[in-house]
């Protein structure tokens, strides 16, 4: 085959792979929308579950998942960004730092049920927080931390050294340099990491299974020490444990749809924020 033909063949291969991914996602989303939309109603979104979840609404689960996601981000984002700044700007690059990075990357691959067990042991039992939003959020925070650290560090590394040197040569301290001349330009990258983190925090079932989630709790949380319902767990229970699985199928899809919309909504918000920063700190 001629070179031009080979090239075109490969382009089509790559195009095909990309379209396939898009199609797969589109199919999943459309399927959930198709089956879930009939279940959506005002009562579903704002009401409380009744009859073990077979009827009523999922408001507590929506509130629960929202609290957990917000809690996870509030805990993980500052710690993740600070770690990334330390690793990228302050730490002496030696064997210790390399080991540290290896540990972070390894953490990313730990199965979520293991995180759940860890959260149970540390937050629920040892620190005595009990099954609560606090325990759940902190466990989820640990889970999404590696992603945030890695993407934040990459964002910091991408800022050219000439900007740091220029700032230092003017008599700025290292922190002033980072704060004024490095951090603003790495914000979009850091937000990307948090977008990925949010999706994972909202959707993971195993970690919250052991640390916070209740199947049937028809009231809203009043403090961080309360247990709470959560969308992914609710979906799991409806799909597997409920005595009449077929009857609640619309509820399952409805829950899935709400979870999807929630995650997409937060991601969209973060994307908008990221575009704002990209425009403001154009470099």
């Amino acid at each position, binding site marked *: 085959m001629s070179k031009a033909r080979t090239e075109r063949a490969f382009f089509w291969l790559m195009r095909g792979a990309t379209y396939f991914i898009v199609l797969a996602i589109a199919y999943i989303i459309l399927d959930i929308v198709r089956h879930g939309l009939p279940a959506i109603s005002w009562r579903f979104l704002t009401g409380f579950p009744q009859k073990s979840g077979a009827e009523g609404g999922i408001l507590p689960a929506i509130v629960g998942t929202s609290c957990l996601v917000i809690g996870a981000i509030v805990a993980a984002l500052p710690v993740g960004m600070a770690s990334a700044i330390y690793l990228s700007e302050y730490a*002496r*690059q030696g064997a210790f730092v390399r080991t540290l990075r290896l540990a972070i990357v390894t953490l990313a691959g730990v199965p979520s049920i293991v995180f759940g067990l860890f959260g149970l042991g540390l937050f629920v039992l040892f620190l005595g927080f009990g099954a609560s939003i606090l325990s759940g959020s902190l466990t989820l925070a640990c889970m999404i931390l590696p992603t945030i650290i890695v993407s934040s560090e990459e964002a910091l590394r991408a800022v*050219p050294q*000439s*900007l*740091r*040197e*220029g*700032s*230092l*040569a*003017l*008599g*700025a*301290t290292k922190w*002033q340099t980072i704060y*004024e*001349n490095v951090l603003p*330009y790495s914000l979009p990258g850091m937000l990307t990491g948090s977008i990925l983190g949010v999706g994972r925090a909202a959707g993971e079932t195993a970690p919250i299974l052991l640390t916070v989630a209740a199947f049937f709790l028809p009231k809203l949380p009043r403090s961080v020490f309360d247990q709470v319902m959560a969308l992914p767990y609710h979906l799991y229970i409806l799909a597997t444990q409920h005595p009449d699985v077929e009857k609640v199928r619309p509820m399952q899809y409805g829950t899935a749809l709400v979870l999807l919309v929630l995650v997409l909504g937060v991601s969209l918000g973060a994307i908008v924020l990221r575009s704002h920063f990209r425009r403001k*700190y*154009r*470099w």
Partner: protein
Amino acid sequence: MTANSPSEVKIEVEGLNFFYGPVQALFDVAMRIPARQVTALIGPSGCGKSTFLRTVNRMNDIIPGARIEGKVLIDGRDIYANGTDVVTLRKKVGMVFQKSNPFPKSVFENVAYGPRIHGAAARPALAEIVERSLRRAGLWDEVKDRLDASALDLSGGQQQRLCIARALAIGPEILLMDEPASALDPRSTARIEDLIGELRRDYTIVIVTHNMQQAARVSDFTAFFYEGQLIEFGRTKQIFTMPREKQTEDYITGRFG
């Protein structure tokens, strides 16, 4: 290796040895740089002139594994002594880099960056400093109507003059310039050289250049470096017409480098 320097010595270097980890880059350099004159550092690539320049404002500190022996005295005080405040030092010693590095901010924010970092916050005070510095750098007329436009939209020559204005804004006494015009076209280069001539009245300028004609045009004193050693230092006229060392003569006449 001493020169007949005029009354005031601004920078004095004694027994300077510099190492990048195990590799030695400067060997026993001793020099007295006079105040309010232009001193050019010339020599072939890799001879240590940029390394030497960066020791004067301790910019080599940020390189891991960099080590220095000897003394660098500014106004009689060793800047490598324990307890030296590097921030104050860098307010006194400004630097312009070879590849201009305007910050991705507005023209105003670029020039105001230094003063703001050091505590000036009021907008009218900053505006005054910015105008003064831009005028000094010969850039005011070109940017006065677009102070809030991004500095990245300026031409190469304008960007370099912006970097000079930015360095001037913190009120230094010494200006270090590392091949400031090497990335510019001849016309912009000429403007920068004229600027150096004007700035000489108020600042001690040390300029690294690989362009010997530029050194001859612009400087009062010249130091010739070769392989990390200071070979010769003297008045520019003398270096270029009657060099004492054979190596200097070989370099100047283009036999190597």
